[in-house]
């Protein structure tokens, strides 16, 4: 029973972190049609920025604010200014994906050069907030789940209840038609980069605080899982990313108990393949499979 509760609680916790990251990743792809493979490096940058600016503070609210701002700025610069310049010159979707790999490498090597050979650490945060059937969940972990839930509600309200959200959904579906309606796709894309970066930053600092230890490659490992969750849900579909994150989180934790902890990281990909065999477009996306990687 304790093990089952652990799987569910920490599956939800993992899902919370993944959801924040994968919704940002998926939303940005949906609106800009750019496969941003530098997402993990942006995430790592945010942990570093938060670590430097706050003087290694582990205050979750301050971290979230700094992380969100850092992520928004870095993402905007990379997406709107750098990648935007390539898009304006007619670069193909594949070329842009390669550019994002280059950007990821530049970020990582820069962080490595600054960091040196030693990793960084936050002070331990293992305060117990609630205990369910003998399994305790820390205050920071509860906060992460709460923040993720709030972020998902905010994204939902943004997409459904605001003009900006409508513009984003419209841009994601049909750029030409959106433009003919008087909506600026450029401005909408800029906002998407900002929002995506903010979510990426929040995910990063929550991850950094929870793991307590980070290096210039911390974002790489979780990015792979974030991408899997986004694709499971249907790439470009924020709601799909939420469901994808939940599934990936629960399946990963469950596989550690039922199969072997060794295969925990592979479980997300087995799930991905299984889902895509049944629904090639992902769980939520109706149009994803028909979209092409073009500017």
């Amino acid at each position, binding site marked *: 029973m304790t*093990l089952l509760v652990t799987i569910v609680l920490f599956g939800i916790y*993992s899902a919370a972190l993944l959801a924040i990251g994968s919704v940002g990743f998926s939303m940005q792809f949906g609106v800009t049609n750019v496969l941003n*493979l530098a997402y993990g490096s942006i995430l790592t940058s945010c942990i570093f920025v938060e670590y430097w600016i706050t003087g290694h503070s582990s205050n979750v609210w301050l971290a979230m604010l700094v992380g969100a701002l850092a992520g928004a700025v870095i993402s905007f610069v990379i997406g709107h200014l750098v990648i935007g310049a390539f898009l304006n010159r007619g670069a193909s979707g594949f070329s842009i994906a390669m550019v994002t790999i280059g950007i990821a490498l530049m970020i990582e090597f820069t962080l490595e050069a600054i960091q040196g050979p030693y990793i960084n650490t936050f002070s331990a945060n293992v305060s117990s907030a609630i205990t369910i059937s003998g399994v305790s969940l820390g205050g920071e972990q509860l906060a992460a789940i709460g923040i993720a839930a709030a972020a998902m509600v905010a994204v939902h309200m943004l997409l459904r209840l605001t003009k900006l959200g409508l513009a984003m959904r419209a841009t994601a579906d049909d750029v030409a038609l959106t433009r003919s309606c008087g909506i600026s796709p450029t401005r909408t894309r800029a906002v998407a980069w900002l929002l995506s970066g903010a979510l990426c930053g929040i995910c990063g600092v929550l*991850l950094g605080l929870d*793991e307590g230890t980070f290096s210039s490659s911390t974002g790489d490992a979780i990015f792979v899982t974030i991408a899997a969750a986004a694709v499971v849900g249907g790439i470009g579909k924020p709601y799909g990313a939420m469901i994808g994150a939940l599934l990936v989180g629960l399946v990963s934790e469950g596989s*550690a108990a039922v199969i072997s902890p060794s295969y925990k990281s592979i479980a997300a990909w087995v799930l991905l393949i299984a889902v895509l065999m049944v629904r090639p477009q992902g769980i939520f996306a109706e149009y994803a499979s028909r979209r092409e990687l073009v500017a």
Partner: protein
Amino acid sequence: MLGSRRSSRMRAFATAAAGAGILAGYLASSGAASGATPHPLKATRSASRLEVAVFSPFTGPNAIYGYFNYNGCVPAALAVNKAGGVLGHQIYCQIIDNRGEPADAVPAAQNLIANDSNVVGIVDGDSGLLSATVPLFSAAHIPELSLGGDIQFDKNKYPYFWRTTPGDDQAGYALAAYIRFDTPFRKIGAIFGNDQAAQGNVPGLDNGAKNLGLKIVNQQAIALDQTAYQTEVQQLKNAHPQVIVTESDPQTAGVFFANLKQAGALKPIVGTSGTVGTNYDKAAAAALGQSTYEKGFVRVTQYTATSGPAFNAWKQALLASSIKNAAGVETGYGPEVAYDHTIMLALAMVAAKSTNRVVFNPYIARVTQGKTVVHTFAQGVAALKAGKTIDFVGLEGQVTFNKYHNSGGVWSVAQPITNRSLKIVSAKDMAAAEGH
């Protein structure tokens, strides 16, 4: 031994090209000649510069290992050069960054082989890279002194590969011997990363535990770099171990230990030599708390001297070297081994009266099995000039290569952070663990 690694497919793919670029940069900055390497038998080292390649990760998650090796090589080179060099040649330590990934290490090795004929030997130490790179170096007739514990090399057949550390499976026997004979614990929880280096400990631990009547109540190979390990921790807790043995990379250890503490499942922890290093200490201390870590954690690792003539010579060379903040250099089975390896290479060349790699390679064993015990390069050169055969006993203690070019060494139980040796695992206890 060393080499618990973090990796991802994307990272490996993406960094391959950049790794090659960095290597090219290093080679360019070190003034390495371009063009194919002449056959070693014909190789003429016209320059007075001999290079020892420190083939290690200097960037990436395991960059600390590169600094371990470099910080051992440089003082050794200084000691050699101060004593007149090798047959009139000065030796230098050349950084070759392999990033700790086979995808980066193989092109790095190929570039080294193709572009640098002044290299007389390699010092390295990453278990996970040996199977990819040893065949390359051996085919190029480059002597390689390693502390990589890949168990495939327990019966090594590559003539240019030498190892002064036992295979990772031996570390498992040492863990079992320590727990059985020096602690009251009999129920073990075994948590190892699912990487090749960490998993190398498992067969020895399993067999050792069986031979000594210990019970492994929970054994898990954990995936690296996860956001939480509570499910794994809960399974461990449910098995009620008295002691936890472990090896993983620092970040994985940090998360795992934090989860262990959160779940109220803390027990005394015994690490392997794969847990040596500032990064591991930082991660573990941050997760457990400094005091808990210092009191509740020991590591069973290879012995290195902390006093005596070899230690004094090493310390003197280290402090006189160009290494930044030499007094604060992290020690404890890392720099010490690279120091010994570099001295052994130099002595082998002097004993062979040749810098030709093919000629002096067999002398790597001979300088550790002669009659006159020496602890420094200068002593070794003096003895060789006097026509004696030498037995170099450095920081690692007596080295005795078997027919597979492996030397077992001595196991020690050490404190974290300071790496101070608390006790030696006796040969008798090791033999019992191995079932002899």
